[in-house]
């Protein structure tokens, strides 16, 4: 098992990152070009890997494992199932989009007031983004719990610097809050990781050795909670979410896209990959509470989003609401719900990524994050307005957009098991329409105010950054099969790990006891 395919995927952005770091400060243009080339190469590489992935084959593919720390039984073990692969694809697609979108804006504007604009090093930003990409791929590809933990924590560092160095006026506070929240969760997870090693009869960190090895007892519940809280903070699920609006609002747009689009998915990915298979009994035990939290998250965050005046905070809150849906899909323990949740992760990455990018384009022009500083913008910048509308519609899950399919599957999967929760959660769709359309209406429609009159429309670079995301959202909305084919076997494997099969649909029950 020394397949180097995934190792190569990690090395491409790593080499790119080191190359950009090594450049002198004055070669900012070259730094951007290298960053774009490296991120595109990574994406192409990932697409080729996806092409070689056998949907009907083994659960984990491209597995490579090397001994790392022998006395802990730790391996540098990589491998992807369908879930991990689609998330890697999504992450590697977002990085070039972020690089393109940040091309000119990173050293001049971060969406803050003009006075808080120190000189910023573009080279540093792009090197950090590529370094983050290394960790993003590794975190999804790790099949060793220890390696996963290491990457999970290490990826905080580049994001911390992206927020702290390139963020808005309150970046120090936001970066610190982000880091401490995640670190706290991570340390609880570390306790569980050690506990997992000590209590499991396998005495191993390999995912495949650990699955199904834990007895159902109180210690399984404690270990589950360690992992769960770490992921719930990362995702973030509602009582643990308060860092995200600050981090999302203060991060530079590119950082916010990766933070909400990819980093937060690590939390929901962690639920599916680690919480459910490793602690099936504890997962079932805690599921009702988590489902209730998820529904509360959907509604609460939606109301908060409606009340926001800061566009970036607004988008951050919409994400919190969406993570509620993902949590619902995962802990409903149905194949539809699980598949829907994974699709939701990908679609949310694309749609929120697009929405953040468009909001970022607007902020670059208006130098303000406040909704009230814009009005009638789409009459001045029709292309920006159109893309804004599409991104917004995908965020509210309009049929025809890929997000609709995932939201529908999640609600369907939840309904078969928990009717009441599904019904309450459905109102979240209406609230989503409200906050997205209100945002669009206030900034884009209405009378053109003076402030927006001189705005330039989207240029080719900006369209190139956001266009592919929108196109993919629509394409997957019409034809999600390639994605769902890849995901379904992995979700089924996860659900069988947790020991849940779909409840039988009502029509399969024999009428009158089977007699006519």
């Amino acid at each position, binding site marked *: 098992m020394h397949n180097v395919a995934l190792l190569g995927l990690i090395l491409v952005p790593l080499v790119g990152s080191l190359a950009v770091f090594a450049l002198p400060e004055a070669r900012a243009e070259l730094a951007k070009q290298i960053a774009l080339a490296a991120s595109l190469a990574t994406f192409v590489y990932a697409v080729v890997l996806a092409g070689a992935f056998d949907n009907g084959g083994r659960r984990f593919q491209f597995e490579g494992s090397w001994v*790392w*720390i*022998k*006395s*802990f039984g730790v391996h540098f073990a990589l491998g992807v199932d369908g879930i991990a692969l689609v998330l890697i694809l999504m992450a590697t697609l977002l990085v070039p989009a972020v690089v393109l979108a940040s091309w000119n804006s990173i050293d001049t504007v971060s969406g803050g007031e003009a006075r808080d604009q*120190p000189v910023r090093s573009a080279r540093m930003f792009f090197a950090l983004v590529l370094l983050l990409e290394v960790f993003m791929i590794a975190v999804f590809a790790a099949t060793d719990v220890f390696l996963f*933990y*290491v*990457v999970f*924590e*290490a990826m*905080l*560092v580049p994001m911390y*610097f992206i927020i*702290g*160095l390139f963020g808005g006026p309150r*970046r*120090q506070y936001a*970066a*610190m809050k982000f*880091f*401490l929240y995640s*670190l*706290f969760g991570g*340390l*609880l997870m*570390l*306790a569980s990781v*050690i*506990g997992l*090693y*000590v209590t499991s009869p396998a005495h191993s960190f390999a995912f495949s050795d650990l699955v199904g090895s834990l007895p159902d007892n109180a210690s399984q519940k404690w270990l589950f909670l360690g992992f769960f809280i770490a992921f719930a903070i990362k995702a973030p699920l509602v009582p643990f979410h308060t860092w995200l609006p600050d981090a999302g609002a203060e991060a530079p747009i590119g950082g916010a896209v990766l933070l909400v689009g990819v980093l937060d998915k690590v939390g929901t990915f962690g639920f599916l990959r680690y919480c459910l298979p490793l602690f099936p009994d504890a997962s079932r035990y805690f599921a009702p509470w988590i489902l209730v939290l998820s529904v509360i998250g959907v509604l609460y965050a939606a109301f908060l989003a409606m009340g926001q005046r800061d566009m970036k905070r607004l988008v951050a809150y919409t994400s919190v609401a969406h993570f509620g849906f993902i949590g619902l899909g995962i802990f409903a323990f149905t194949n539809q719900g699980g598949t829907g949740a994974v699709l939701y992760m990908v679609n949310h990455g694309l749609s929120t990524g697009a929405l953040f990018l468009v909001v970022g384009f607007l902020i670059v022009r208006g130098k303000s994050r406040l909704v009230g500083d814009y009005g009638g913008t789409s009459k001045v910048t029709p292309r920006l307005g159109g893309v804004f509308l599409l991104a917004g519609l995908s965020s509210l899950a309009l049929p025809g957009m890929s997000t609709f399919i995932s939201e529908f599957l999640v609600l369907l999967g939840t309904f078969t098991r928990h009717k009441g929760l599904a019904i309450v959660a459905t109102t979240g769709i209406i609230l989503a329409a409200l906050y997205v359309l209100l945002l669009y209406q206030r900034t884009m429609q209405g009378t053109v105010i003076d402030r927006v009159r001189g705005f330039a429309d989207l240029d080719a670079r900006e369209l190139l950054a956001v266009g592919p995301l929108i196109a993919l959202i629509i394409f997957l909305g019409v034809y999600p099969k390639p994605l769902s084919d890849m995901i379904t076997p992995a979700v089924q494997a996860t659900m069988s790990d947790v020991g849940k099969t779909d409840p039988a649909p009502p029509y399969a029950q024999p009428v009158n006891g089977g007699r006519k």
Partner: protein
Amino acid sequence: MSTLAALAPPALIKVTAPSLAYYALSPILIVLAAALVGVLAEAFVPRENRYVAQMVITLGGLGAALVAVAIIHDTSLVTAADALSIDGFTLFLQGTILVLSMLSVLLIGERSVDTGSAVVASAAVVAGSRADRSLITSERVQTEIFPLTLFAVSGMLIFPASNNLLLMFVALEVLSLPLYLMAGLARRRRLLSQEAALKYFLLGAFASAFFLYGLALLYGYSGTVDLGGIVTAAPERSDVLLYLGFGLLVVGLLFKAGIAPFHSWTPDVYQGSPTPVTAFMASCTKIAAFGALARVLYVGFYAAQWNWRPVIWGVAIASMVVGAVFGLTQTDVKRILAYSSIAHAGFILVGLVALTRDGLSSVMFYLLAYGFTTIASFGLLTLIRDADGEATHLSQWSGLARKSPFVATVMTILLLGLAGIPLTSGFTSKFVVFRAAYDTAGPLVVIALISSAVAAFFYLRIVVMMFFAEPPSNGPTIAVPSALTTVAITIGTAVTVVLGVVPQPLLDLAAKAATLRG
């Protein structure tokens, strides 16, 4: 006649000279010899050559002792009438102390950062007097500090090896007395330095007295000072004497290791001492003290573990919480590092209460990793200066990355190491300690993890200051060090990263060396 006979001295107890395994003691003997040569050099070598001569003698002596440790690495014996255990544990710690003290000597010997060196030319001048002020700009270098360091190191080498409480006390004094002096030798801020020295001396003397009192009670209980014989010597006696003696003895050791609630000297002494001396104290003294503590607990009182375990749990929790919480309120980088060392001492204790071989080897790994990171961070601290010497106030560090991205990056790596972020030695060492303690001390591990999350805040605050804040208009400058400091910082940082990425060789070494004899 009969009265006279009664007054006559009793027949002398026949004392036979104990046999000494000289080769096993060679590291200690080499360092002591080098210290004596250093004293002679101080008297006979002309002043202009003294600095070079002392550097050669000190580094040569420490290097030779290190070679001796490497040669006898397989030794495992008890010598000098069972007073000294030269076993894997001792040799591992001796090797670590020697390497770290060499790095500290490099820092102490640095001459291009401050005029002369970080050490005052004449410590006895009244602070604030005219003569004292003129000393600041004096090019004169004071070289007595080198033999003092060697004497302290020799005490540190004996401390974890001593298998006999009397010898342990002697080692404690040999390592402490030079340190009291060295703490008062800072070139800048003389009053603060003298206060630190006095405080360290007074509290240290108290701690020594506690140790000695405990020793006396234990002797009274068991009639022996050999570690191995104390608990088993007199099973029929009341245990009160044993527990009292143990408690007092441990207070002395906890004081030296800087563990709460006996930590109050740490921040003041770390802040007032010359920074290279602080680096030396924070790394080497801590290692030696933990070595002795481990030997007392594992060899001496292993059988009584159910009695002392709650006590060590308590001080471990106190140390972690005090270090993490009080560190939050500090605004001086040296004091932050001092509180960090208190918290780290608590983490190390967590490994110690595991009471297994894994626990012992994890403590050894932790001590080594922590020592390197600490020396490099204090070394880096000496480079950031303003007109009054080192600029250690946190606000002076704002925007440092703008001035020197390189220094700020290295400091960040070291701080992430202290915070225990993965891919640094700090994470690996926390992991080994917590893994070893998980079974026997699960709740302690959870408290340790929560305190590391709290402690992360003050490490990050320094990073935030350096990278995300605007530099002040009259900010500090970054001194260009000579090769000495550069080498020390480079090695410290490199070890911090390497032990985070490929810890296996050292883990193997620690696991192999984790044997106690006695």
